[in-house]
């Protein structure tokens, strides 16, 4: 699909969502309040205990909450995976399959929540500036590069995992509950990973890599993560593996498509 069509889809998606303007404003407030509560919680907790949680001080915990917003933004861009099972069940892929477009790109572009993604990033930037005034973050440039890489690679890996789950709708129909199940693990992104037992830490980095979009990048940025070389390779491996699996599943999925309804 060429870039012009992709942007036209984004434009339509934006227009479609902004029909209900009050929802737009309310969702902005919702994100601000929701994330703010976690920052206040960690600040109050560490203030009461008058100590740090291992390598985690108030500033890095506030950063952890901000980093979660970055992943939310990426996820919103790929919101089409969440609606895929409904489209498969209702046979709604027909309109993409009989037009000269990439069905996958059209499906993702049609359902992308670009305004939500943009807003999450904007909220994150505003909060970063404000929190920087309070905690005076300091980090090295090389760590910042690794931090960005880790978030981008981790987010894409998780999105591809979600994509694979979404594609299973071609075989199993309604997979919403499976989505909820996997999503329930995403709560881990709000907590410092090093608080958990080693086994769970490995699970959250290499199996269900929630840690790669939250704790790990923050630790890299703050200079408290030791094995960044190994991590880099692991992230590339995970990303490549999930990408291959996703591409293979997509090819098989189209053969399974029943185009139900009508």
């Amino acid at each position, binding site marked *: 699909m060429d870039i012009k069509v992709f942007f036209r*889809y984004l434009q339509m998606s934006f*227009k479609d969502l902004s029909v209900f303007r009050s929802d737009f404003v309310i969702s902005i407030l919702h994100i601000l309040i929701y994330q703010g509560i976690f920052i206040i919680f960690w600040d109050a907790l560490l203030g009461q205990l008058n100590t740090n949680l291992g390598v985690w001080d108030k500033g890095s915990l506030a950063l952890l909450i901000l980093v979660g917003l970055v992943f939310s933004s990426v996820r919103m861009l790929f919101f089409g995976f969440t609606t895929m099972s409904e489209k498969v069940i209702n046979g709604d892929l*027909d*309109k993409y*399959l*009989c*037009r000269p477009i990439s069905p996958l790109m059209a499906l993702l572009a049609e359902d992308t929540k670009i305004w939500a993604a943009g807003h999450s990033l904007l909220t994150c930037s505003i909060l970063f500036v404000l929190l920087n005034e309070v905690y005076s973050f300091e980090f090295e440039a090389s760590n910042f590069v690794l931090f960005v890489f880790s978030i981008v690679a981790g987010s894409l890996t998780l999105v591809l995992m979600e994509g694979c789950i979404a594609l299973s709708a071609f075989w199993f129909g309604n997979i919403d509950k499976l989505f909820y199940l996997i999503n329930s693990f995403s709560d881990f992104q709000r907590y410092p990973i090093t608080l958990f037992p080693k086994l769970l830490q490995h699970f959250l980095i290499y199996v269900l890599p929630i840690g790669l979009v939250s704790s790990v990048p923050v630790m890299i940025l703050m200079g408290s993560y030791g094995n960044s070389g190994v991590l880099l390779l692991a992230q590339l491996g995970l990303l490549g593996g999930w990408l291959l699996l996703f591409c293979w599943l997509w090819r098989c999925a189209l053969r399974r*498509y029943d*185009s139900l309804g*009508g």
Partner: protein
Amino acid sequence: MEILQANSVNKVFFRPASSEARTISGKIKGWLSPPKQQFKVIDDVSLSVEKGEFVGLLGTNGSGKTTLLKLLTGILQADSGQLKVLGHHPVKERKAYTQKIGAVFGQKSLLWWNVAIIESFHLYASIYKLSRTEANQRIDELSSLLGLESLLTSPPKKLSLGQRMKAEVAASLLHRPELIFLDEPTIALDPVSRLNLMNFLLQLNREHGTTIIMTSHNMADVHHYCQRSVIMNAGRVIYDGRTTELLSYEHFKILEIKTLSALDEQLLAGFEYELVEDNYYRIKTSNEQAKETLSRLAFQPQVADVSISPPSLDHAIHHFMTSVRE
């Protein structure tokens, strides 16, 4: 010129089968892995279509019409058989192929529900790579032909079903496709909208040589607009020929008589007839007996009006289906 060739095309679907399990373990197994039954939704279908034809695809519900259309548009992939349309394999060469076709599925909308229809038109214009000028010109042209001018800024949710269907058709024709597939395009349309839409399609077919393949349950549409009919039953093509020839398979006529008072029962003895309403009779008579029946009944003093007509396409299709089942 032949633009569509389908040879021995098959498509199998699975549907839930009833479980025979009596034991608890059998029932648990059946719940975890429900039994499925395979059925051929398209069974060895071969078909060829010439450029410029207007083909009506007919059949009862579940006969495989829509599935065949979906195979021809590349939405579904055939399990076996060969399919070539406009020189392309519909699935393997999807991008090049779909650039040349238009598809309207009456029960599935391609318009954005909350956004003005002109925005959807521009989206599809960019998908088909029309320039801005070309797109505007085409939108104006189709809007005028289909009477959509005043509706362009309305979202589909604010349109009636007929208006929406016209918008769906317009969106599918922006790129001047060589071949159009329509699945029940007149479904739930009022008679005026139906006629307008069908006349518009006929105009496309006659003036631009656009090939049209259309499924419909409306026999009047097929009778008046489609030169060729293809009847499907249980996934198979049971008739493929001229629509007028299909009618000649019926060897009877329908005699309709309106009277001022009831006809004598003895006069009607031996006829297959139906009392449509008071003093309005519909009598079925064989072609050989038509003349005799007419002279026997039409000149009774209480007869007010008489008409004799060939059977409708509904009758012809019913006859075909029944003979196939027998």
